[in-house]
């Protein structure tokens, strides 16, 4: 049989919740990573437990890959809804397989397999359906049934039944498949595959995290699940209290006696924490808070993505106090940044916010990581003499001391004097405001020696057009440029507060475009406010779905032409 080589290869598996689609996505991405290839996996699921429409898309390449693709080489539709929704997303030579027991009308060149009939021979047929995608993939790639059996053994329970089901699908598929086999080259580096909601807690843990508090809220919940599952082997604490208000106040209480703590939520839960984030600012208690956005406002669309919380993150907390907000562009950056933000929170004794989106939180990617580059939280320690919790210093940062101690250590939510006692004295109010404001300036000085902005494709020179973006949209942009062979630089501020305006002076006089997932263009507004840069055009998407590589490439070409 003929075969053709492909570098970027994409497979989609669609079904209803309960068909094991999520699991198949994970198995597929780790299968590609075991081949030494890069992989990116996007999961699209609804806020329901059974039924509905779920799908996963996995794209793989021998080169770093930052997004799933719109056009697929293989589509496996486990039910009629998936078939109708995705059948037109195949490449020119793409293979479309559907469950002929459920799909009434299908196109000639698509391959129907009676998956439900095959599945019914075993207990829990619904759960098994997803495995058929592996049979189809192996058929397309010309891999053997032995290899298929091995993959199933490594990843599933009820091995015998699953292998038997997979083989039946495989045989059926191979005998009906008339197209060309696809050959995927092996890569030379085996990497783990992680989701953003694994990369973030891993980074925080590397950075010194001792205890995590959270109340479930998609798309942040899987941080809670991940850390809870690792409480024992990581030797940390994890607690799920009565609500987000308890979450943040407990985390602050624990931090005030020396624990490195983190909290996480999505918009609604984060809003409930806001009063206490201001408390952390006033009491100068270090806290790392993760905000993973879903489309808002309000309850919004829980399992989808958007960048509508930018100003919400920047403006957290009533009153004026220094805080740090940053947003990672990739899974690797999420890891480094989580450790760095925890360190910064402790160095400057204030709130650090890691702003991200469902798209990064829940998509999975091969993870090229250098663990030694992680930061580790440390703090300014009191050594001797009288202890003053809010000692006035040049940097604005006062030494920390934790109980039990002979000295009295007083944290206070009221404006306070150096000792930590409430004050209404105008001079002291001014002094303490100035002290906290000095921390803001100290943070800026620190930022000047940190990597606060990523510039991609700078080799293109100062005349190349610029795309400004941030957060997980960075990944979509990078992949779209690669796919469309577009010559443009990408400027992505990692830090958003304090905003590294000084890094932006170099960009002027070229064509530019802002790309973000926001209806009101909050990032474009911020860019203008902080740097004066007015872009020529913008591309915005706010339907809850991440950008698709191919359409984004087309839009960028138009925008920059």
């Amino acid at each position: 049989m003929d075969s053709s080589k492909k570098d970027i290869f994409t497979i989609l598996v669609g079904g209803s919740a309960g068909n094991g689609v999520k699991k198949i996505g994970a198995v597929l991405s780790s299968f590609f990573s075991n081949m030494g290839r890069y992989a990116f996996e996007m999961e699209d699921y609804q806020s329901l437990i059974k039924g509905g429409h779920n799908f996963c898309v996995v794209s793989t390449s021998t080169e770093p890959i930052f997004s799933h693709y719109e056009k697929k080489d293989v589509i496996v539709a486990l039910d009629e809804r998936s078939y109708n929704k995705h059948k037109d997303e195949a490449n020119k030579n793409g293979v479309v397989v559907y469950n002929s027991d459920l799909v009434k009308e299908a196109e000639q060149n698509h391959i129907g397999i009676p998956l439900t009939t095959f599945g019914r021979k075993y207990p829990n047929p619904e759960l098994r359906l997803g495995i058929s995608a592996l049979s189809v993939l192996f058929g397309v790639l010309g891999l053997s049934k032995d290899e298929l059996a091995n993959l199933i053994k490594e990843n599933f329970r009820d091995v015998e039944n699953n292998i038997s089901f997979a083989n039946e699908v495989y045989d059926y598929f191979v005998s009906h498949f008339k197209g060309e086999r696809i050959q995927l080259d092996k890569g030379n580096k085996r990497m783990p595959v992680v989701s953003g909601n694994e990369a973030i807690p891993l980074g925080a843990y590397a950075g010194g995290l001792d205890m995590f508090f959270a109340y479930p809220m998609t798309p942040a919940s899987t941080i809670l699940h991940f850390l809870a599952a690792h409480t024992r082997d990581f030797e940390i604490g994890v607690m799920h209290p009565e609500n987000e208000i308890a979450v943040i106040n407990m985390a602050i209480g624990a931090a005030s006696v020396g624990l490195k703590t983190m909290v996480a939520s999505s918009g609604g839960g984060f809003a409930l924490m806001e009063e206490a984030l201001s408390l952390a600012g006033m009491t100068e208690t270090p806290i790392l808070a993760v905000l993973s956005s879903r489309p808002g406002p309000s309850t919004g669309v829980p399992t989808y993505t958007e960048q509508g919380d930018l100003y919400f993150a920047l403006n957290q907390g009533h009153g004026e106090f220094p805080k740090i907000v940053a947003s990672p562009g990739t899974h690797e950056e999420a890891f480094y940044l989580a450790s760095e933000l925890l360190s910064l929170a402790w160095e400057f004794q204030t709130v650090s916010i890691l702003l991200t989106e469902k798209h990064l939180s829940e998509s999975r990617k091969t993870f090229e990581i250098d663990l030694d580059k992680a930061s580790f939280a440390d703090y300014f320690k009191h050594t001797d003499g009288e202890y003053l919790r809010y000692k006035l210093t040049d940097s604005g940062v006062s030494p920390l001391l934790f109980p039990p101690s002979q000295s009295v250590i007083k944290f206070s939510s009221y404006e306070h004097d150096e000792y930590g006692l409430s004050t209404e004295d105008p001079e002291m109010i001014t002094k303490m405001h100035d002290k906290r404001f000095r921390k803001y300036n100290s943070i800026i000085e620190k930022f000047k020696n940190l990597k606060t902005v990523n510039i991609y494709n700078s080799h293109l020179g100062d005349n190349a057009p610029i795309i400004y973006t941030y957060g997980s949209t960075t990944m979509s942009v990078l992949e779209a440029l690669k796919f469309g062979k577009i010559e443009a630089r990408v400027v992505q501020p990692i830090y958003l507060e304090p905003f590294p305006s000084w890094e932006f002076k170099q960009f002027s006089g070229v064509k530019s475009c802002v790309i973000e997932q926001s209806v009101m263009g909050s990032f474009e507004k911020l860019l203008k406010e902080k740097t004066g840069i007015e872009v020529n055009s913008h591309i915005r998407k706010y339907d809850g779905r991440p950008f698709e590589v191919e359409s984004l490439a087309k839009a960028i070409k138009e925008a920059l032409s």
Partner: protein
Amino acid sequence: MSVRDELTTYEENTWCPGCGNFGIFTAFKGAIKELENRGVKKSHVLITAGIGCHGKIFDYLNLSGFYSLHGRAVATAQGMKLGNPDLYVVAFVGDGDAMGEGLEHVLFAAKRNADITIIMHNNGVYGLTTGQFTPVSPKGFKGPSTPFGSVEEPLNPIKLVLDAGATFVARGYSAKIKELTNIFVEAILHKGFSFVDVLQPCVSFNDTYELYNKNTFFVDKIATTKEEAIEISNVQDKIPLGIFYKEDKPVHHELLLEGKNLFKESLTKEKRLQKIREFLNI
């Protein structure tokens, strides 16, 4: 009036002369001294407070801790206990603070038997915000937000916390300092969730001295069941005072953290990276 001593800070005391909070302050300082006799160092007693007249005790007591938000001291206290289980953590809360704004934290702390002590300054009003009715004020209470009398029935804090799972429950009176001191000592020494409802006259908005002086008495025993505790604590013609209930039960931080002290046992960077390497299989 408070006297200067090592447990008193230099902060100017701004409670109204005659306020019941002075009694609580004196009793608590007495309790700290007694605890030191019993081997509890004052360096190990951490305090936190809500916002209200009651919260000012944080500024007056020369002890370490965290002056929290209105309603949130009980959450802060639990965080402190989880942060370092070697510490004794006491939360001073108001009746508005703990029964209104932050009721959930009180109930959940009781539910999980968090090993903290709650001292509720029960003056029946929002003192600091000028005398509005609180969740425990009687029906008909007239305050600036209920000028025609409150139309709601009050909560019964003792019954609430018992139902939720409290393992030490008592009621004291700020003018009975000796007994209140003893209740505080027992509450702090109790391993588990301790709740002390302290009747605290507010001379400016709810002067209850006469009522409490005439109509309180101390119960003569500790109940053996929660039902009995609710019964003996129930306010009828007279208001019962004393320790109503005490039970030994596993405490939250020991169960959740499986005996670990995360502050003392925090892993080094190297150990953490090693564990991540194992997890990622790299």
